[in-house]
């Protein structure tokens, strides 16, 4: 029996559940507690668990650092971009009412996109920070 067998089996079981839970928290932030920040942190926790159990090199193969740098910037651009789109459609900056046919539809779409941007950036930045700390000192 390999020395880390229990850890490997339990991690393989838990990591998909954690990712699905983070997506649930992200998209149900309107109807219950949750939202972008919590979802981003939980999403990064899944990959941190993978890195702790299977090694940093395996984790960096499934999420290359280039992707993380681009995703972190992408979330912020998405958030600011929603504001620019509302400017172009005739409203104020970040005025979600012009995004949809009715005010409530526009607000729903605006909040969804904005929370998505927040979640993407927070998850990517937490992973960037963890990989920076864990990779220091290795040649």
């Amino acid at each position, binding site marked *: 029996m390999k020395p880390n067998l229990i850890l490997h089996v339990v991690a393989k079981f838990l990591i998909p559940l954690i990712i699905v839970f983070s997506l649930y928290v992200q998209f149900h932030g309107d109807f219950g*507690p949750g939202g972008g920040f919590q979802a981003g942190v939980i999403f990064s926790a899944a990959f941190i668990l993978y890195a702790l159990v299977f090694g940093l090199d395996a984790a960096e193969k499934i999420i290359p650092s280039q992707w993380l740098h681009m995703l972190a910037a992408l979330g*912020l651009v998405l958030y600011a971009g929603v504001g620019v789109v509302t400017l172009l459609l005739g409203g104020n900056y970040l005025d979600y009412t012009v995004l949809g046919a009715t005010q409530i539809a526009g607000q729903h779409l605006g*909040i969804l996109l904005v*929370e998505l941007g927040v979640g993407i950036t*927070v998850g990517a930045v937490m992973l960037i920070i*963890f990989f920076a700390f*864990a990779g*220091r000192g290795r040649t």
Partner: protein
Amino acid sequence: MIDTIINITLLAFLATTSVAIVRMTNLFAIVMLFGIFSLLSAGLFVVMDAPDVAFTEAAVGAGISTVLMLATLALTRNSSKTPYTEASPAHRPWLPLIVVAVTGAALVYGTWDIPSFGDPNAPAQTHVARYYIENSIVETGVPNMVTAVLASYRGFDTLGEVAVVYTAGVAVLLLIGGRRPKTAVKLKDKGEQDEA
């Protein structure tokens, strides 16, 4: 009644954990106690009717912060001395104790006039908050008032916050993003420090 008892118990645990953090000298144990402190505070936030905040505090405090502190402990391990132990303080603690006591007394004097805990007629509950509680479901159609205020009414603040998180990520990358092997360079051996 049961609410008050749970409140008192959790606060007592928190106070005990924080005093233990100050008094212990083994850094590994202190980081573990910090994780416990975060989890207890998340429980206390739930008792105080703040599930969003409890969620974030549990994920961020007991999750990310503890992992980063353990990583820092691993990176700052010095094999020459006893590892993970704090050096005993060189100064007597009288001056910090006096400063802390005076500041604490001033703050307690300041809380003499605060409205009671849970008072529904406090000024904090009667002005802007009433507008948000009554109108956020009508104007935005989102049942979670905290998300509605965070993403819609106060969207600029959240934009600034995402920018702050991104900046912190960039700054950490600049500081320790490279993979240099750990070589301690004492400042008196090398004339000028010129690491990137």
